[in-house]
């Protein structure tokens, strides 16, 4: 099982859960599984084209998935998927 880490602003969707375990082969199917369990996640994370939304960063074991294979990134058992709001920073 891979594990999502849910940020504060989205925990209302996950009924307060900080982590959610999912069975999946890649990031896209992991998000599908998360949305199946807690409906609404897909809309919050993906835009109408099915791409990651602009203000959402997703890290697979601390690597920004946009620097790698994006939603096609392979997800293995024990992998950690962190959802982090993008708005921060300013050297």
């Amino acid at each position, binding site marked *: 099982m891979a594990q999502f880490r849910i940020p504060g*602003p989205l925990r209302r969707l996950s009924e307060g859960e900080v982590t959610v375990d999912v069975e999946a082969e890649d990031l896209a199917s992991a998000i599908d599984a998360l949305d199946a369990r807690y409906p609404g996640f897909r809309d919050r994370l993906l835009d109408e084209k099915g791409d990651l*939304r602009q*203000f959402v960063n997703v890290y697979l074991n601390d690597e*920004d998935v946009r620097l790698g294979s994006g939603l096609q990134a392979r997800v293995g058992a024990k992998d950690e998927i962190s959802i982090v709001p*993008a*708005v921060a*920073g300013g*050297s």
Partner: protein
Amino acid sequence: MPKVVGLRCRECGTEYPLQATHVCEMCFGPLDAVYDLDALKKTVSRKRIEDGPKSMWRYRDLLPIEDSVNVVTLGEGFTPLVKADRLGAELGLRNLYLKNDSMNPTNSFKDRVVSVAISWARAHGFETIACASTGNLANAVATYAARAGLECFVFIPVDLEPAKVASISVFDPNVVAVRGNYDDVNRLCSQLIESTPWAFCNINIRPFYAEGSKTLTFETVEQLGWKLPDEIIIPIASGCQFVRHRQAVRELIEFGLVRGDRVPAFTGAQALGCAPVYNAFHSDTPDRVLPVKPDTIARSIAIGNPSDGVYVNRIARDTGGVVEAVTEDEIVDAMRLLARTEGIFTETAGGVTIGVLARLARAGRWNGDEVVVAYVTGHGLKTAEVLATANGHARRVEIEPTMKSFREQVNF
């Protein structure tokens, strides 16, 4: 009556009460401070500003700090706007100005945002101030936390330049050196805000922090005799200040502080070694800024995943500006050019700004009469080591302490 009435999402417009939060729960968009504009319009005037202190706090009416709050200040802002005739002559610009923000208390632009952020945080009961930083912000946060008597945690990349580490550490903050780059530090801190009761200047209290940036543009326009320039060149890291400068011009017009509604062109400057905004600007999809792994000497602006990048591209495009980028050699050349022609020693980020200015000027962007302002945002001593290692100094000689040696070695 409070002048700041709440927070509003820049994307979907959802409103929130005043609190330490920075993202919209609905769409993850950024939150901005919302002012009671009608009340402010009755108070704000040129005279009221000109009668104010010789610091950025002369624009207090337009900052998110209520009148009753005792601000944390070291006299930041109201830095010199210098007419750059010698640099202008090299670049064919007859009305070139430099806003020298390296003259701030900690020698960078960051004092503006931090003075606002820490004033807000202290007034709202926070006891610990924190930040994720490439150095300049950490320096300002450590300084102003000491001034305010607050606990301080600064998170920096482990390989930060030695001069920056020293000028942070002297204020005795808790320094957390993170084994990773700035984007890693930023991600860690974005996750930490949920488990600490701290005010992270550039994260959870970002809507207030960001507002401090506006004063740089307010001052520039006041120092130009309440006239808007034709173009402003601004370095791009997260893009946060770029967005605020656009907002500052909007407010100057809205409050009747300047005449007319001709908006300056806003032009962004990046180092090619970390140019995610520039890459997107020149692609088919400027609204998708893809992250990069930074590799540049301009470390203070090396943000590979810039949160406000898409806004930068929209503003540059809508105002007739561009986003340009320069090589590592151009950065160092520009630092030397600025020092040689104007007597201003800027850090690598300033080299990026002046490098972009030079590149655009030489490419014929201007006819020469436009009023162009470049924001020089940090002092050269912060990154002095790049000059020690980069192509030496051609005019240095070493001699014996004798007249003979001097005559033999020195041409004059």
